[in-house]
């Protein structure tokens, strides 16, 4: 993940009415000047709430996102691919650690976030509710899902909340390996046997619709987020992010001789990509729990929690106590 396709709560225009207007003006001026907001600075309730929600969703996406790729570690073709995939999956789980800490600085404890993931209260990136049938699906994720994630993460790294930006700087540095590794895998499939090419083409056919969903609902139908853009919580609209992804990666997919399963996909005279409108009903259905892997993903987390409980209890020391991280 995957800062994309985040679900934001619908914002009522009066939800800022309770804020101190002078403090609010100072806060907004600071963001306009390009300065970062730090945990102990004053911030509107709405800013805090939406940031927690976004960073938390991002963190959950990293650990859930490690599952469809993690399953291929033992079956990756050859020692080198195994090493690389293992390192990548470890990175993703590490990203979750960094992001949970960033969200915690806003006042939500890690326990609460993990509870909310397991009970289905918090969301994670919808794309990980789809299965990885073959090695080629795994390569699609490593290359293109990560590419989509990088588009979002690079944008969000210029956002206004200090701890999130610092976590993202570190994450983006690691993501460059994921992207190169993923592209490398796909080039090998593309230049391999007819069977290998077919394997990737089939994976592409399966993953294209969720990839188009990845950046979230079209601007025409998504909840209005002007205030989040002004506060640099959201750094671009869903359609802008999707367009940027298409612009960077469609030519690279075509270069390898693969067919993207959308007859209407083309760049118009203004440089904007046209495509068949993704099925937003399906997106809603899957995000609300009815996708091919939703149950399994959460069940894996639940089992891990239950099985790890005795270890956590055995390690607990009476002297430690929870505190919010500093920065």
């Amino acid at each position, binding site marked *: 993940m995957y800062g994309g396709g985040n679900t934001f709560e619908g914002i009522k225009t009066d939800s800022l009415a309770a804020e101190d207007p002078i403090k609010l003006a100072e806060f907004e001026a*600071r963001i306009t000047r390009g*300065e*970062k907001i*730090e945990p102990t*600075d004053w911030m509107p309730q709405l800013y805090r709430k939406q940031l927690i929600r976004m960073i938390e969703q991002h963190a959950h996406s990293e650990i859930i996102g490690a599952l469809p790729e993690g*399953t291929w570690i033992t079956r990756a073709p050859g020692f*080198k691919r195994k*090493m690389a995939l293992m*390192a990548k999956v470890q*990175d993703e789980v*590490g990203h979750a*650690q*960094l992001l949970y*800490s960033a969200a*915690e600085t806003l006042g939500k*404890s*890690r*326990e609460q976030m*993990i*509870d909310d993931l*397991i009970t289905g209260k918090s969301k994670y990136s919808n794309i990980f509710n789809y*299965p*990885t*049938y073959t090695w080629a699906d795994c390569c699609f994720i490593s290359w293109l899902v990560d590419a989509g994630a990088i588009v979002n993460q690079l944008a969000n790294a210029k956002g206004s909340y*200090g701890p999130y*930006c*610092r*976590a993202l700087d570190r994450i983006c*540095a690691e993501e*460059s*390996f994921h*992207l*190169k*590794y993923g592209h*490398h895998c796909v*080039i*090998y499939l593309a*230049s391999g046997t007819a069977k290998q090419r077919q394997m990737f083409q089939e994976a592409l056919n399966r993953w294209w619709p969720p990839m188009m969903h990845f950046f979230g609902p079209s601007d025409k139908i998504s909840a209005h987020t002007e205030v989040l853009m002004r506060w640099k919580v959201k750094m671009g609209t869903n359609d802008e992010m999707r367009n940027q992804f298409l612009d960077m990666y469609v030519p690279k997919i075509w*270069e390898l*001789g693969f067919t993207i399963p959308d007859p209407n996909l083309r760049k118009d005279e203004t440089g904007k990509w046209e495509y068949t409108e993704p099925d937003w009903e399906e997106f809603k259905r899957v995000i609300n729990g009815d996708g091919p892997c939703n149950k*399994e993903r959460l*069940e*894996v987390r*639940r*089992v891990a*929690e*239950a*099985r790890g409980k005795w270890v*956590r209890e055995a*390690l*607990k*020391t009476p002297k*430690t*106590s*929870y*505190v*919010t*991280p*500093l*920065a």
Partner: protein
Amino acid sequence: MNSLDPRVARLPKINEPVSPKVPLDQFGTFEVFVQPKEGKPFQHEGSVHAPDLELAWVLAKETFTRRFTCTSLYVVNTRDVYVSPLTEGDKNAYDLLPEITEQAGSKKDFEIYQLTKRGKQHVHVGTVQAVLPQEALVQAAKLYNTGNIVYNVWAIATAAIRFTTPEEKELWLTLPEKKFRDASDYKGGDKLKNFLDRNIS
């Protein structure tokens, strides 16, 4: 469980419902400081949750030093970091420190960290001696306040820190050899070019 993933398919069935987490299920909080190169100052990198200092050090190593270069790392309980007010604009955090009278008792060492650019990390500037952390900050103001704006100052009792031992430093010697974690190890250019040439001809 019915799954394409063989590891998931053979997971045991958990019958008891997973109860809401109790506070501290994820342990206490520890701050992590890394020295990227010999001779460079330590800087704050982030935090980890761990049951104690020893495990915090291990988790910090895994979380923050898999990449780039690292020569040393230390961790401290977040509660042992004494924090000055955070300022902005042209306000210097050193100017806002409350007065403190000379304390009786034996002095100990405190590591001083400064934030000189908002949005960046806190960086180590030196070690001072004081009885209390409040006093350590006042000491730091005398020694390190050059007039340039400092937005935030931290004082950490040196005795509370879990440092890296000289033997442990070997851990990072092999870091540059782990090329498989590096984008530069995945050059597909030649293979891609061959493929494109083949397809054009």
